[in-house]
Structures are given as structure tokens and as C-alpha cells.
């Protein structure tokens, strides 16, 4: 975490948020996360689970 937002319009702060939908970086993160979760589930279902259970 970090210092609270300054609302100054420069650097880190909520004013940089694009109105409307999620920013592109969030969508990219989501796609990567879903892919990794699917890969992990498939590995577990095919028997390559933690400790072999």
C-alpha cells in the first residue's frame, strides 16, 4: 500500500482513472489470471495436483 492519494492531478492518484469501464491493464491482468487459473485446474484434474492427490 502507500500514501493516500493527493488529488493533485500528478503522479499517483484517483484522477488518473478513466471514466466508464476498467482500464486496459486491468483487462490484461484479468485475461492472464483466468488463463493461469484454467491451466492450474486442468493440471489438478489430470492428476498433477499438489502432492499427487
Amino acid at each position, binding site marked *: 500500500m502507500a500514501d493516500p492519494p493527493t488529488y493533485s492531478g500528478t503522479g499517483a492518484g484517483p484522477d488518473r482513472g*478513466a471514466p466508464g469501464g476498467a482500464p486496459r491493464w486491468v483487462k490484461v491482468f484479468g485475461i492472464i489470471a483466468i488463463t493461469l487459473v484454467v491451466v492450474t485446474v486442468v493440471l489438478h484434474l489430470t492428476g498433477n495436483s499438489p502432492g*499427487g492427490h
Partner: protein
Amino acid sequence: MTMAPGLRRFALAAHVASSVGWLGSVLAFLALSVAGLTSQDTQTVRSAYLAAELITWSVIVPLSLASLLTGLVQSLGTTWGLFRHYWVLVKLLLTVPATVVLLVHTRPIGRLARAVEHTTLSDGDLTWPRTQLVIAPVAALVVLLVTTALAIYKPGGLTRYGQRRRRTYR
């Protein structure tokens, strides 16, 4: 509820220390698990898994819980909030599963530690759990480096809740 500046600084220091400590201890765990998987010396293998179990329970698990807890305090005790900014939310969504996965993986760690206590592992023994104890900390390091980067760069973006709240308090 917003914390006073002095308390906020203290909470921030606690969060940074526990998060960076978690990252460092996972790196140490990775060194031990690689030694356990690749070493030809039975004493090294035995020591590696016993030490891996020790640092898991005495360092990694406490630091992961401390990092999660201090992160929650930081977000809820400042104007960042927990659900207002995507970078805070994504950090939370990475940290909570990482902590759960860590707790799940204490089982194979314990199983390997019990195995080396009573027997001598040779090359082909328990290959998958030993390999898994290399893969898991690598994945954890990626997650922890991403959360560190998010905390430093703070990419922009308000959630719908954050946008509503901002309009309300403007």
C-alpha cells in the same frame, strides 16, 4: 475511518517490511527447494527439506498473514480504500489466493520433511512433490513482484464503486 499521519506511516512501514520480508523468505525457500531437488548429497537434501519446513512455519506463513493484515489496515485506514482503485483491488485479489495457496502447500512441505526424517531420498523419490516445491515459490515470487510493482507504480483506474463514491463526495 482515516488514520492519523503518524499511525499511517507506522502501518505503511509494517506493511512494506512484512511484504518485502515475505518476498525474501520465499526466495530463501526456493534456494532450499532447488537444493533438495538437485543435490546428490543426502545430508544436503535432508537438511534442505527440514529447513524449508522450518522457515515455512516460522517465517513465510507469519509474514504472509502480516502482509495481508497490514495491507487491509493500510487500505481501510486511508482514503485509498479497499475497493475504490483497481490497483488496490488487484493487489488484494492476488494476495488472498497467494496466502491460501501457501497454506495449502504446507501439506506437501510437511510430507517431504517427514519423509527425510525417516528415510533417505534418492533421485527418483517423490519427484513430483519435490518439483512442485520449486514451481510454487517461483509462482509466488512472480505474484509478489507484481504486487510490489502495483504498490509502487499505482496504475490508474477507479472501480465503479470508486467512481460512485467520488461523485458523492465531490
